[in-house]
């Protein structure tokens, strides 16, 4: 197996693991969003590694990366919209104080 391919997959796996840790351990909404960004970054690295080392003739994988970038932007826009609404209503974006959102 190519060492470059393995390095890319390992980096993606590590970013995914760090992102999962961040998304689960943080209490602040903006920090949770940072964790989600890292999870998506891990997915992006894997997709590009698959394109580069398995199917360089098929640009569909690059298109998927563009879709992930779109998802990242949407996550930020919606997350900050929710953060502003929450901050205006309660003066904090701490998720431990948002137990009523459980439904």
């Amino acid at each position, binding site marked *: 197996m190519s060492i470059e391919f393995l390095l890319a997959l390992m980096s993606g796996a590590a970013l995914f693991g760090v992102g999962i840790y961040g998304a689960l351990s943080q209490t602040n909404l903006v920090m949770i969003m940072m964790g989600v960004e890292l999870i998506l970054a891990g997915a992006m690295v894997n997709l590009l590694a698959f394109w*580069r080392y398995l199917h360089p003739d098929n*640009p*569909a994988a690059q*298109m998927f990366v563009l879709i992930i970038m779109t998802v990242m932007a949407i996550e930020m826009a919606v997350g900050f919209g929710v953060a502003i609404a929450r901050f205006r209503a309660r003066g904090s974006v701490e998720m431990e104080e948002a137990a009523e959102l459980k439904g």
Partner: protein
Amino acid sequence: MTAQTFFIGFFGVAAVWFGIVVFRTFSMVRSALALLFSQTALGAMFLSMQVEFLGVLQIMMMATEMTIMAIFMVMFMMDPGGLGKMDMTHQKRLSLAVGIVSFVAAVAVAVFIDWGPLASTAPDAAQQTVDLGLELLGRSMLIFETAGITILTSMIAAIAVAIQPLKRNDKS
């Protein structure tokens, strides 16, 4: 070891290291900047993998996105400078365990799966951009258009959620 291998490894380690720093520092501004460096290292890693267009796009997009994030951090955090060393985490052990299990599982998949023959060369930068353009405006046009409409809708929805509600008797 070729220069390409070295740089892919170097930027990969840098991206992961700055990703860890995001959750280790008490300063929220430093967290946002660490995420910016992590995403930029990822962009540099894409460039090392000969994916020029997406590498440059990643660096440009994430620089803007993380700068906005840093501004929001200063706006919303109780202690954006981290001077009070407030611990803003919960269920640390569980999160760490889930993170490590996810990492090990992903590594196991990467190592133990037979990926078949690997390509040694990639199309040049100009050809990649042409191919991606034809893909986006051809077979994947519907997906691309859907992504565009979705991002527009989410922008409008985010503004609608964030806007200050007017009082009933407010004439302005």
